[in-house]
């Protein structure tokens, strides 16, 4: 079969032009890839490819610049919101987005994200919550579920010693600088469509200078969950969503 459209055919799905098409380095079934694509798609559909500046972070998504083909700068671990603040203040009419994992955003970078949101910076942060430090080998994250085994919580996360998972979308929604905060998932087609809507809303918040916009993606990490891709994908729907309900927690976007 051909990889090119034949007569009478049209391409019903192709990579957005904002994506480089490079093969990803992610593990099989990792949701980072889906999320990358959705972002690229929404950039393209909003005509933002040429004004976008991506602020990468440190985590499994560290190579985001290999896949999303826009100007990019790499932030130190956890500091993407501060770097994005600098970029936006330097170039207020560019579209500035950051992409961070849960270790990056909710552990080491907790202060930066909260203060960036509170200042109401006109930037968009994509938060990929896979409940573990993926890149470094599956250690406990601030979003790790109670009882979840990780390489640094071998007996499962313990409420008494480790505390409970952080609900970042809700926390950020409680700050006055936040224009939009929601939690989405990409484990089903329905959720993917919902996620795309959320992305567009967030992008709009920034383009209209309404303040900080934030989307949390629940994301599967089959490798560190020690599951098959299919199990992990299902786990998102059955287990993650219980602690981390999908929804819009703040929306002041006109």
């Amino acid at each position: 079969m051909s990889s090119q459209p034949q007569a009478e055919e049209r391409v019903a799905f192709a990579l957005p032009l904002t994506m480089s098409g490079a093969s990803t380095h992610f593990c099989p079934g990792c949701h980072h890839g889906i999320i990358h694509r959705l972002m690229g798609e929404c950039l393209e559909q909003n005509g933002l490819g040429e004004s976008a500046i991506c602020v990468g972070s440190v985590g499994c998504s560290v190579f985001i610049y290999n896949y999303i083909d826009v100007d990019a700068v790499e932030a130190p671990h956890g500091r993407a919101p501060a770097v994005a603040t600098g970029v936006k203040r330097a170039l207020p009419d560019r579209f500035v987005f950051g992409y961070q994992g849960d270790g990056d955003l909710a552990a080491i970078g907790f202060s930066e994200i909260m203060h960036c949101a509170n200042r109401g910076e006109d930037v968009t942060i994509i938060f990929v919550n896979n409940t573990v430090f993926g890149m470094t080998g599956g250690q406990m994250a601030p979003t790790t579920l109670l009882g979840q085994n990780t390489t640094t919580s071998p007996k499962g996360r313990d409420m008494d010693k480790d505390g409970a998972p952080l609900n970042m979308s809700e926390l950020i929604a409680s700050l006055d600088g936040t224009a939009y905060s929601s939690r989405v998932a990409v484990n089903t087609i329905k959720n993917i469509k919902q996620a795309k809507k959320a992305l567009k809303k967030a992008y709009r918040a920034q383009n209209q200078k309404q303040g900080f916009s934030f989307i949390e993606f629940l994301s599967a990490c089959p490798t560190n969950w020690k599951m098959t891709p299919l199990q992990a994908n299902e786990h998102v729907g059955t287990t993650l969503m219980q602690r981390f309900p999908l929804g819009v927690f703040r929306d002041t976007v006109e």
Partner: protein
Amino acid sequence: MGLYTDVIIAGFGGQGVLLVGNVLAYAAMKKGLQVTYMPVYGVEMRGGTANCTVVISEQEIGSPLVMYPQSLIIMNQPSLEKFQPRLREGGIQIVNTSIVPHSMLKSQTNGCVPLPANNMANELGNPKMANMVVLGAWVKATGVLDLEEIKEVLPLALGKSDKRIIEANHRAMQAGADGVGDLAHSGK
């Protein structure tokens, strides 16, 4: 200077090359020799290449890394490309020809032992034991350790003592060792 040998074991992540290195290191330690085991892996999560270097010596070991190894265990093509040129004159090279094309082996390499390790392991019931096949072959080909010493430490390195698994691994090693005699000569 006494006994000294080193080996680089290289392949895809998931082919069990680090385990082979560990087993060798355990066996050498058990035998009262000095030993270092040094893994090198890419940052890619999966599907990247992995290799490790084991140095075994009667003397205190200096570098745990080896630029020009005395022997190689090669499990895939990129590893062959990377390491074959560095093998010392007269060095021993065990190559998994289930994956590496025969044509790529340097004809001038003396101690080259091509072994269809995956196929052999498959025949023994589990293609994952290809690493044990090449391990057996290396032991036989180099003669630094003997198979019994390896077998002894296997449970330690595997962290498992399930008898059936152990025995299957023994068989795979044996097959590898047996393969050396025949192939080493017809080899190249």
